């Protein structure tokens, strides 16, 4: 490590268009840098390209031009250095919750014994110690997402990418999960890129909120507030208004 200034994730002039090269690009010339252990939220309407950008960072989708670097290394494909949590149904339904997490741990190169221990620890961390034997189909949506977070952490990734992980949950569970994620994140610091279409969710979670629109990042907002934050905090409300107005 050369030290201080190198960003953990660099998105450099990334463009993406699907289909014909002449079609309107989903992303055009996007630049973004995330510092080590920073929590960055990508916020925007459906179809603004935020999930595409996340998939490009993950290496699941190649950019049409430009590049992404993690720790200065160009991303050429998906891999276990970049853990990902999807919106839903990404757990392997043929494995128990514990085996799902263990699967992630095994992928990070651990032996069976060690992987099992890590899986137990992570299930405990996400509050599901008692549910290790359950299969995904026997867990509620919120529990499934906890397991998915534990599985991504089991890879011990350099960065954690989250694609609307609470988007399919009911409002109440969603608020619980936000608090839960912050608790987990505070004990396992990672650089997180979190995609959401909820302004309040972005403001509760992110160090910075990158608002996307028009094929790029329209504005970036620092949320200089200690967590846990209050929804009724004047600074939060002010930022909410600012972002809301910026979207129109």
């Amino acid at each position, binding site marked *: 490590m050369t030290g201080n200034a190198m960003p953990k994730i660099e998105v450099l002039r990334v463009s993406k268009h699907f289909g014909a090269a002449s079609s309107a690009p989903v992303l055009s010339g996007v630049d973004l840098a995330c510092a080590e252990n920073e929590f960055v939220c990508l916020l925007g309407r459906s179809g603004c390209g935020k999930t595409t950008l996340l998939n490009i960072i*993950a290496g699941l989708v190649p950019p049409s031009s430009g590049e992404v670097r993690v720790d200065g290394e160009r991303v050429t494909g998906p891999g276990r250095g970049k853990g990902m949590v999807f919106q839903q*149904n990404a757990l392997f339904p043929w494995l128990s919750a514990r085996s799902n997490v263990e699967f992630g741990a095994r992928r990070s190169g651990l032996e069976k014994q060690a992987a099992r221990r890590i899986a137990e620890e992570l299930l405990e961390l996400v509050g599901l110690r008692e549910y290790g034997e359950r299969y995904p*189909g026997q867990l509620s949506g919120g529990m499934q997402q906890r397991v998915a977070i534990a599985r991504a952490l089991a890879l011990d990734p350099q960065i954690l990418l989250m694609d609307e992980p609470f988007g399919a949950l009911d409002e109440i569970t969603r608020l619980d999960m936000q608090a839960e994620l912050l608790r987990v994140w505070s004990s396992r610091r990672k650089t997180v890129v979190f995609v959401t279409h909820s302004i309040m969710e972005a403001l509760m979670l992110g160090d910075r909120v990158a608002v996307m629109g028009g094929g790029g990042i329209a504005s970036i907002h620092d949320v200089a507030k200690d967590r846990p934050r209050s929804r009724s905090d004047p600074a939060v409300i002010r930022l909410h208004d600012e972002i809301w107005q910026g979207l129109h």
Partner: protein
Amino acid sequence: MNPRAADALLGLGGILIVLAGWELVARSGVVSQSVFPPPIHAMVIGLRKVPLPDLGGHVWISLQRIAFGFSAGALLGVVIAVAGGWYRVFGNLVRPVVEMLRPIPPLAWIPMAIVWFGLGEPSKVFVIFLGAFFPVLTNTWKGMSNIDATLLRAGQTMGLSGPELLIKVAIPATLPDIATGLRIGWGLAFGVLVAAELIAAESGLGYMIMHARQLGEVEVIILGILVIGAANLVTDWLLARVLANWLGKWQDTTRAE
């Protein structure tokens, strides 16, 4: 009593009611008993003409043919469908061939089977093989093409690719469809059994039935039909149990919310 035992008892009751109805109609004299004998009578006479050890021998040889034909058909069906569903070039190459051959009833292959394999065991096993092969193949293929893309992406973000992604994610994700294919294939293998054993066989339930027809032994025909039905029922139940075990709790994916 647990609900499953109750269901099984009801099923048994249904079978007994049909047998009792048959017995009554046959005894009432509406139709001649030599054409439509009552079932208990038929079984008693049938067993006198084909004693239990002989009957057991027919059942055993038939089950062996089914086991061979089904295993070969299921194995090849799964292998081709998995490869075809995963490797695009191979899939596009094989798909039209499969679509062309699939609608041909297995029985239509009997003359060809005789030309290729003669009158021995392989020709019968081949026809049963065809019965099992296509349902297993089409169900597995369907499963392979319907894998949730998120599962594959999740696998990729955990560093899996190529054959490893196939073995650790794609195939397990397809298991329920493979299981469905196996059950349908098993049923069809039974279905074509009698026809397969029409090919100059000297043993097996199909032979027993056809031979009885030549001798005019209606009772033996009825006995044979009942035994085929019972054997299918029992083995299908066993197969369902094995598959359910194999798929574990995965199948109750129906909401815990």
